[in-house]
């Protein structure tokens, strides 16, 4: 009996912890659907009659569409650039025993831990000199170097996880080295590419320091969201609607990855 009570208590604590972690997100979403009366009250409303007014308000706010476009452009460009360049390097370090491989890996590891917060001043000065400040392409280049080391590191792991035997079998059947890699390993690499892309997406989509410091008018959504809160400080409903809209793509990406990762990388590809 004592044991059952203890198990019950432990699970109750688990539920309480889950509630604490989920509550801020729940409160954001629920506030986004409240009308002004339900927001402007000392006694919070937990189950409001939903309204879309706040979303309409947020989308029609100055610059939302423009900065959304900027964010999408910067994020997708970063993702494409990092994946292509990172994939080339990852394929080599995972599959070819070349000289300087160890040195290259150490370089990637160091680059991955580079404190970019400390490189803001030189990036600012260089871009000012080149007349490249306030340009979205500058952000793309910077986010590309933020994400490239992890992209290589992560893809290298995924490629190494796919047995080289499969490629060798294809080569026995007459395929070339590169041909075997492209036809055999690449199709198995999708989950790894998606997982890595998620990381690139989230980094570029969320970045605030550089977007706020290097741009003067062509901002991205994180800068907009923070200034929206300052400018519309009392309109919490619209602020939460804007936050919800900004969060949705990230959550979607997280969910896609979770789904794709299940099932394993090469399940069934190699027997025994």
């Amino acid at each position, binding site marked *: 009996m004592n044991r059952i009570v203890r198990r019950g208590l432990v699970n109750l604590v688990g539920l309480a912890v889950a509630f604490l972690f989920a509550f*801020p997100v729940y409160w954001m979403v629920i506030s986004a659907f409240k009308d002004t009366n339900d927001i402007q009250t*000392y006694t919070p409303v937990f189950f409001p009659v939903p309204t879309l007014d706040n979303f309409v308000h947020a989308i029609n706010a100055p610059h939302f569409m423009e900065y959304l476009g900027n964010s999408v452009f910067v994020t997708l460009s970063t993702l494409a650039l990092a994946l292509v*360049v990172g994939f080339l390097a990852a394929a*080599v370090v995972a599959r070819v025993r070349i000289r300087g491989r160890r040195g290259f890996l150490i370089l990637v590891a160091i680059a991955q831990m580079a*404190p970019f917060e400390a490189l803001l*001043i030189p990036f600012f000065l260089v871009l000012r000199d080149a007349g490249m400040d306030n340009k979205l392409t500058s952000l793309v280049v910077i986010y590309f170097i933020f994400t490239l080391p992890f992209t290589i590191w992560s893809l290298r792991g995924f490629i190494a996880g796919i047995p080289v035997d499969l490629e060798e079998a294809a*080569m026995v059947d007459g395929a070339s080295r590169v041909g075997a890699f492209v036809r055999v390993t690449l199709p198995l690499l999708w989950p790894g590419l998606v997982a890595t892309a998620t990381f690139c997406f989230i980094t570029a989509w969320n970045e605030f320091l550089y977007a706020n410091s290097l741009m003067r008018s062509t901002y991205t959504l994180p800068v907009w969201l923070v200034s929206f809160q300052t400018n519309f400080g009392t309109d*919490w409903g619209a602020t939460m609607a804007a936050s919800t809209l*900004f969060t949705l793509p990230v959550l979607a990406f997280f969910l896609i990855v979770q789904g794709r990762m299940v099932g394993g990388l090469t399940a069934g590809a190699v027997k025994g």
Partner: protein
Amino acid sequence: MGVIETQAAEVRRKASGPAVAPSPSVRMRRAVGRSLPYLALLPTLVAFLLLLGYPVLRLVETSLQHWGLKELFSGTTTWVGLANYQRILADPEFGTVLVRTFIFTAACVGLTIGVGTLVALLMERLNHLVQVLLSVAMVLAWATPIVTGVVVFQWLFDSKLGVVNWAISSVGIFGNWLNHSWFETGPSTFGIIVLLIVWQAVPFVALSLYAGLLGIGVDLHEAARVDGASERQIFWHVTLPLLRPLILMLTFLSIIWDFKVYTQVYAMRQGGPDGQTVTLSVYSYIVGISQSHYDIAAAVSMVMVVLLLIVLIPYIRTMIRSQEEA
């Protein structure tokens, strides 16, 4: 590449008839084939050189020069040696910011690792359903973009309409907290920022440690129990020592992340009230970007990098070693 590749080459050679000296075009193709891997690494190497190596050099250079608004437009600078470093080290404000950053980092890291470990141990003891609920809740917190987190916490802790003040007041025993302003004093504002960081950082730590716990398995615990060890003894003498390398890595990572954190601190109150929540990275931003003292900001950033290296070097060494074993 082993036997199979040699066999493959053998098969191909046999198929193409008796061995003859390779023609010039074949030799050419082989040379291209040999340089192909290096060609594939080239874009990355160029990117590292131009976008990491050069900025680092410029950072060092700027920290040794006189670099203000005037120099930004004239383009000519003067070398001043270590004067910028002497200036910040003599500045009591820099000292205050540095000590504040250390305390802030210690609070964030300590709480993240402590709470993360407790949540991981809790996960192990839950029903399947509650376990799934807790995992989903943690992924929600983890996936929340940082700026969203900042804006949502400002709303939760709003003095007039915030749900937190209502909740504390409703309990009854703490008195009336309606209209309590959380962002009026430095320590209180820091409390909210630390809470936000810990809320977002615990999921990664807890889920990693939980995976580590699963790896230990039940056999060892079973064996310890048979030998008469209590639950507490098992935790201190079996579980914890086995988790130690993982906890150490997570601690290193947390220190690296929290020491240089910028967005949460700046976006919450721009370093306010009255500059009381200015940490090292925010200080470097304010001095450099807002006040155009690029030289001083570069020196501050250099101090940040050097301090980070103390933690970074052992971390990178461990990371490379673990990759090579894999």
